[in-house]
């Protein structure tokens, strides 16, 4: 059987746990032996892990990079040892020749989808938006912000009035949202919330409810990831839309690897997964049921 090393960022969110679970499942189904390494959010651990994979002589390496920069020399080492590397869900700024392919979604595009939805939804009406950012400095936070801003640029009726980091977490999402509500006339002046991930949105929804407002109608809620809990909120009418980031990055990655092993086929350098928009019209309860056992 083939041995595949997988260097995962960590287990900081439900989404990432699901990605790990699905990768394990995929490997098992295809009869690979998966060498799993959790880097606990640290690039240095990921680099060390890849080096160890090389020393062990694995047949391929999956890498979910914690940050885009700084992979050149370790990827070169892997290339020298002729081990194909596939990037999962985030991309790197190294030369394309250093990896086989990258599987992931376009983070900027996700933000655009969310922004576009809001533009369509308010249809020209005035809308003051508050934004919950991800961890300061992380690439999803930066890209999703950029994408969203691109989408609403040129629509003068839409304006981001407050934007703060809530570290991608539920608890901070709730706390920061509370202060937004406070600062914006008890929430009366806010028309929509854009959160860089669903977890922060779920926390914020609770804050909105506790402030005596109705999330989903008084304040529109749009976020990204499509984790099970947001579908429950959408089903309950408390959230309006989410953009999917599929945790099944390993499937396409393994497909590409198989083709490469078998015939040496070089896949495309970027295999983009779909960034699908889900709204209240898309059977949220059904989506929830389909996802709830995927390890989110």
């Amino acid at each position, binding site marked *: 059987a083939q041995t595949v090393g997988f260097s995962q960022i*960590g287990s900081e969110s439900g989404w990432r*746990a699901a990605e790990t679970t699905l990768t394990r499942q995929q490997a098992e189904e295809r009869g690979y032996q998966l060498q799993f390494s959790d880097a606990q959010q640290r690039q240095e651990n990921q680099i060390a892990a890849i080096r160890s994979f090389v020393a062990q002589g694995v047949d391929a390496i999956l890498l979910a990079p914690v940050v885009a920069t700084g992979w050149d020399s370790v990827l070169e080492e892997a290339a020298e040892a002729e081990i194909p590397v596939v990037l999962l869900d985030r991309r790197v700024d190294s030369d394309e020749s250093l990896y086989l392919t990258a599987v992931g979604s376009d983070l900027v595009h996700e933000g655009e989808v969310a922004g576009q939805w809001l533009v369509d939804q308010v249809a020209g009406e005035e809308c003051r938006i508050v934004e919950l950012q991800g961890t300061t400095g992380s690439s999803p936070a930066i890209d999703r912000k950029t994408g969203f801003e691109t989408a609403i640029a040129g629509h003068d009726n839409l304006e981001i009035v407050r934007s703060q980091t809530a570290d991608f977490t539920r*608890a901070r999402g709730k706390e920061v949202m509370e202060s937004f509500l406070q600062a914006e006339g008890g929430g009366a002046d806010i028309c929509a919330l854009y959160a860089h991930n669903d977890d922060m949105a779920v926390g914020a929804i609770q804050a909105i409810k506790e402030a005596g407002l109705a999330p989903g109608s008084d304040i529109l809620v749009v976020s990204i990831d499509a984790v099970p809990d947001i579908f429950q909120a959408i089903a309950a009418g408390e959230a309006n839309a989410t953009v999917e980031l599929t945790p099944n990055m390993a499937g396409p990655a393994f497909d590409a690897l198989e083709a490469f092993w078998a015939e040496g086929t070089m896949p495309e350098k970027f295999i983009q997964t779909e960034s699908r928009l889900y709204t209240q019209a898309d059977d949220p309860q059904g989506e929830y049921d389909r996802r709830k056992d995927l390890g*989110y």
Partner: protein
Amino acid sequence: MTVLSRIAPQLIVLAALIALVSVFYPGFLSIDIQNGRPVGPVIDILKRSAPVALLAVGMTLVIATRGIDLSVGTIMAICGAAAAWALTQGLGAGAAIALALTAGLAAGLWNGVLVAVVGIQPFVATLILMTMGRGVAQLITEGRILTFTDPGFGWVGSGVALGLPVPVWIWLATAIAVAVIMRRTALGLLVEAVGINRRAAHLAGVNATVLLIAVYIASGFCAALAGIVVTADIRGADANNAGLWLELDAILAVVIGGNSLLGGRFSVAASVLGALIIQTISAGILLAGFASEYNLIIKAGLVLIILVLQSPRIASEWRLWRDSHRAERGRT
């Protein structure tokens, strides 16, 4: 009277901060009544202080024994996970809380035994649980955010009782209970003796081992309460993020409360005020609407200023200056 003079510096700092934040956000002190519950930035601060204030209460005791507990943030995560697990298993809110508290006590016992019996330095002993505990918490939640809907348990985090959010009552009650127990019994004295000179206290017949274990258990218990509050607040246990880096805020609160990291004399009230000060800074940053990149620098700057002003050296310089001033006035 003596208590008041002990916590006077913290009260002054708090007042100054409130004034500062009010400059950036004029409505800071306003309180409205909505749906029969008071809302306003001050109420929010009182409520949001709960985790750090609770941790600071336990941390004060640990630091009084010349120890430190880095694992409290992790213990919060474990206890939150345990409670959420109990709720998803269909147990009631009471059972969930009991389970969480038990987990906190057990974690504290683990720390206490490592420190007091095995003799590992507190920083290292609790560092071990700090790394390990998050794994334990995630083992319980299997890496996902365990959500629940139990309204009774949720009330603990976001309910209102007698006009104030429930978490406020929880930290107030804990702080008062601990302070009273420490001062109305001989525990406070014995804890301080162990913190200042463990060997001398041991030779005088103080059961230092048991006391040390007890303070870590108390810290674990406080952390469990904090874990319950945050879990109930978001109605979900987030094993990876609950209480992350909160131990540092708790230690900061204890020090801003004027307690020495070298052990000995302590004041629970001052530590809790320290927690309020930290939360006021955080809330002030949010309300003032600075960009996220500035959060850390502003916090660091304010904390440094506060600590410099409170430094014993500055205090003695100030006293010297005042005395000489008085003497001069007396002469004229």
